[in-house]
Every structure is written in structure tokens, then in C-alpha cells.
């Protein structure tokens, strides 16, 4: 597959973009990356044209056709390059379970992280940390069920749900670092703690979860931006 046939509009810091990169790596696909400006200002013409509905990354462009929304892109990659290692489980029921938990992650995991960074005082942060801890508890249970004794949510190798959840590990470490409160802890989630180490070390993932230090710097800029946005409403 010619490199230029697959393009990805992304941002180094975005966990959603990381999901797509991991999926492309699993399929050993080459692609051309178009990096959006860190603060998203201004959005590139390519992004605006390719994702007129949301104007967000990631956008995969394959044979000049754009696909948006990270999990939809991951499914597209799995559907299109179907002969390589598969990303979604082969069993229909297992697939519905993986999709369920990925949707849960999208709903429940990032919003409290954003709020923790945005709010000013510690008491305001507490309820969001509690949400994150509840998510960890549920994902620990989900891991036991989905992995069926194996290394990853997807079994022997990383799959859809590993990608959906694992892509956030960089930002999780920012939260834990900046606010000195561990969310993914051994006592509450022994399986997930081990899984997280395996995930970031996986060949398809290596280097894609940005270093905490780099994200911490960015989170300061985002904090200003998000606080400003609230101030304006």
C-alpha cells in the first residue's frame, strides 16, 4: 500500500489520534501524518474540509476519502485490512462487549480528566476523581471478563478495547502527577496495573503514548484555554 494512500490528520498529544496510530501499526500500515497546530489555532484547511461536521482530529483519509471519529476509524481499519491481525474480536457477542466498554470509556473517562485540569480548587476535583476511580473499578472487572485469563482485553494480543482505554494512559499519568493522586492503583486494580505496563511496551504502541513531562507542559496551556472558555460563558 503506497504511503500516500493513507493520510492521518492528528496531534501528537491526542489520545484519540493515538488510537488510530496504534491500529495502523497493528496492520503494519504506512501513512502520511499531517500534524495540527497544538492549540488548534488556526485549524488547517485540510482538517476543515475533511471534517466539516466536527473539525476535530483524528481524521483518516484513505484513497482521498475521509473517515472521522477515532473508534469508527479503528473499525474501518479493521474492516478494510481484514487479513492482518484483527483488532475487533471475532465472536459477535465479544464484539458487542468490546464496543460497550469502549463507548463507556468515551463517555466516562475523559470528561472528569478535563474537569480535574480545569477546576480551581481541590474540593472541586474530588467528585471527578471519584468518577475516575469508579471507572477503574468497572474496567478492572471488564478486564477479567474480556481477557479470559490472557494478557490483554483482546486476549493474546492488543485489540479494540485495549486501544480505546490504553490510549489515555499518557493523560492519566499527567493527572496523577499534577494532582498527586493515584487513580490506577495496585490494591484496587491489580490486573489493570499489570496490563498498563504491557500495553505501553507493546510494539504497536511504543512511542505513541507521549512522555508525561511533555503532556504536563501542554496541560498547563490547555488549563488556561479551558478556564478562559468557562469564564466567557
Amino acid at each position, binding site marked *: 500500500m503506497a504511503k500516500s494512500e493513507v493520510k492521518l490528520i492528528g496531534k501528537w498529544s491526542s489520545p484519540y489520534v493515538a488510537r488510530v496510530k496504534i491500529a495502523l501499526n497493528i496492520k503494519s500500515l504506512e501513512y502520511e501524518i499531517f500534524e495540527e497546530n497544538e492549540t488548534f489555532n488556526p485549524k488547517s484547511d485540510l482538517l476543515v474540509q475533511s471534517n466539516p*461536521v466536527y473539525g476535530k482530529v483524528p481524521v483518516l483519509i*484513505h484513497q482521498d*476519502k475521509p*473517515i*472521522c*471519529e477515532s473508534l*469508527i*476509524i479503528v*473499525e*474501518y481499519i479493521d*474492516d*478494510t485490512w481484514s487479513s492482518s491481525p484483527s483488532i475487533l474480536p471475532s465472536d*459477535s*457477542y465479544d*464484539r*458487542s462487549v468490546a*464496543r*460497550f466498554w469502549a*463507548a*463507556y470509556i468515551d463517555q466516562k473517562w475523559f470528561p472528569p480528566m478535563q474537569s480535574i485540569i480545569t477546576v480551581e480548587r481541590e474540593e472541586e476535583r474530588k467528585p471527578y476523581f471519584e468518577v475516575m476511580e469508579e471507572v477503574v473499578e*468497572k474496567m478492572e472487572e471488564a478486564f477479567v471478563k474480556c481477557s479470559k485469563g490472557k494478557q490483554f482485553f483482546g486476549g493474546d494480543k492488543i485489540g479494540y478495547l485495549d486501544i480505546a482505554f490504553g490510549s489515555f494512559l499518557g493523560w492519566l499519568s499527567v493527572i496523577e502527577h499534577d494532582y498527586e493522586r493515584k487513580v490506577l492503583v495496585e490494591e484496587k486494580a491489580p490486573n489493570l496495573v499489570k496490563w498498563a505496563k504491557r500495553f505501553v511496551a507493546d510494539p504497536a504502541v511504543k512511542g505513541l503514548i507521549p512522555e508525561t513531562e511533555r503532556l504536563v507542559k501542554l496541560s498547563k496551556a490547555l488549563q488556561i484555554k479551558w478556564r478562559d472558555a468557562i469564564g466567557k460563558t
Partner: protein
Amino acid sequence: MTDEVILLDFWPSPFGMRVRIALAEKGIKYEYKEEDLISNKSPLLLQMNPVHKKVPVLIHNGKPIAESLIAVQYIDEVWNDKSPLLPSDPYQRSQARFWADYVDKKIYEVGKNLWMKKGEEQEAAKKEFIEVIKLLEQELGDKTYFGGDKLGFVDVALIPFYTWFKGYETFGNINVEKESPKFIAWAKRCIKIESVSKSLPDQDKIYDFIVEIRKKIGIE
């Protein structure tokens, strides 16, 4: 082996309606169990959807599938011998998923604000609702259905909300047909299809339901 299929649902739920349509399209026999979401969630619901405690929940041979679009995809994959809802082409599949997801993100919340809110919030909801409908109308284009010649995934995701239109239009003071005649024409085509018409309640019944809820919440 005969399949045992149960649907935990609540009659006015547009999300539940999606699953009803999919089951009807595939000709699947199932047991419909009405949940009384207003007063008492059943032990079965709490057991089958402990995470969200919401309907619809599809239970296939004892195994629960929650989240309406996930359940519809599951039905499409398992009963793949007739009436495919998702296209076979990966790119078209991705587009169907994208627009169904768009419906999920936009219609329910914005529609809710039409009949629940007043003043500025309601005005903003009115503007956004019409924008959303127009964008969907644009996506439909000249096709008979979003799925092309036959009912597809996006049609199934979207048509249930049409039952809520009398409520949206009355309380939100909007006229969707005036703004988006092609959209209403599509909706009317869909409800003529048997699997759709037998799965959806009457607009009047939904309207009465909304009136009841508004009373209960104390909106006048």
C-alpha cells in the same frame, strides 16, 4: 437450538424503538418486557445492565447487550441471512456509523431542550435542532433512505425520533416540514415500512407522554 431473545424496553424510548425495528426487519421472534422507568426498575434490568441501568437491553440466550446502536449492530451481525442494515463496503459502513453516531450526539439532547427548557436555552435549542435536521437532510440527498434503496443503519437510528416530533414542534414552536421538507418526506416513507410502523408508537401517544412528564417536573 431455538434462540431465546428478550428485549427490556420502555415504550416511548427512541433507543428501544431502534432495536424493535431491527428485530422486526430480521423477522426475529422475541419477548418484549416493559420496564417501568418512572417508578421501579426491575431486578432483571439491574442485573443485565448494572453499569447504566438503562433500556434498551437485548438479551440473547441469557447474554445481555446494552446500548441501542451496539445491539442493532449485534442483531445485524448474528442474523445476517436477511435485510442487512449495515453496508458491506467498509467505507460506506464507516459513514453509516458516523451518521448514526451524529444522531446519538445531537438529536436526543437538543430535542429534550425543546420541550424541557424555556427562554434563551430553548431558542438556542431551536436553532441547533433545525441545523441538525438540515445537515441530515443534506446527507440524505436524493436517496430514498439513508441506506439507499432500503432501510439502513442510519434510518433505524433516526426514525424513532420522528415519533417525538409533535412534542418537539409544539413545545419548541418549530415547523420541521417548513424548514426541511425532504426530511419529513423521508420520515413518512420510513413509517410506511411494516417493520417500522409496527415498532413505533403514535406521535399523539408520545405527545401525551411528554405532557405528563412536563407536569411531573413542573414545567408549565
